[in-house]
């Protein structure tokens, strides 16, 4: 596959890519997408773990970080949540820790198996910090 000639029109500049299949040539137009680097999942996770790991994180930063994270179209990984829960501990804020667990469960939506998995992954941290899950406190019921 080699790039053919560039054809300039008045409004659109197309790159016609010519495909060679068994001697038959068929023109294929390639799209001009952005060449910006896409962040990988690992980079995303690492960035957020670092954000919440800041030793002198303040309450505003915790709230801002958490609200932003919940705004994304994903359920945060256990390690990000672990970092956030430890940030709550540094800020002496148990209520926010419980709220984060509630928010994550809500964020999972119809995928009911995500939350139990996350709780299982976070169990060591929850025990270490003494955080009760909303279920333990009966807050998931009305």
């Amino acid at each position, binding site marked *: 596959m080699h790039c053919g000639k560039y054809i300039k029109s008045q409004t659109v500049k197309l790159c016609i890519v010519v495909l060679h299949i068994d001697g038959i040539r068929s023109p294929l137009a390639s799209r001009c997408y952005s060449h910006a680097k896409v962040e990988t999942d690992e980079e995303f996770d690492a960035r957020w773990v670092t954000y919440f790991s800041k030793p002198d994180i303040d309450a505003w930063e915790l709230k801002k970080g958490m609200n932003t994270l*919940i705004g994304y179209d994903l359920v945060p990984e256990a390690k990000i949540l672990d970092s956030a829960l430890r940030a709550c501990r540094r800020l002496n804020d148990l*209520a926010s820790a419980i709220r984060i667990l509630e*928010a994550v469960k809500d964020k999972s939506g119809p995928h009911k198996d995500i939350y139990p998995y996350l709780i299982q992954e976070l169990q060591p941290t929850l025990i270490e910090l*003494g955080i009760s899950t909303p279920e333990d406190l009966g807050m998931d019921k009305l």
Partner: protein
Amino acid sequence: MLFSFRMLATRALSLVGKRAISTSICLRGGHGVAKVDDYALPAYFDRRENPLPDVQFVTELSAVQKSLKEKEKGSWATLSNEEKIALYRISFKQSFAEMNEGTKEWKSVIAGMFFFIGMTGLVVLWQRKFVYGPVPPTFESEWKEKEVQRMLDMRINPVEGFSAKWDYENKEWKK
């Protein structure tokens, strides 16, 4: 004329220097700051997409709550479930379960729908009785019989439609 205008302007400006005219807020001795209304301050609200609001729900803590907040600085494992719930309720008004709870509004909506459909039905019945005149004579069965006979005589749709279903030999509808 021009000279007199300039004179007035300079006299006015000199008065500003003597603080005889307050032309800006800063001359009012610090009382010029606008009053901050409640709606301009960060507010508390329960939203799924904003799990940690800008402010705590309870702003004025009672003595019990204050001591609880002090206890929160220690190990959380020493807190009882009731204390943990109390801490939660200081910071937040409704839990996620409570804020996501549905209302019973749909029952009112369905009831309203049925009611208005019923009302419309009554209006239609009233119209039939009191508004519309008699139905044309062409609906009477005697007329209809003659109409059908005429259609058959004219061989309406003889291939696949109306007359095709009539058996002309036996003078009856085809089975």
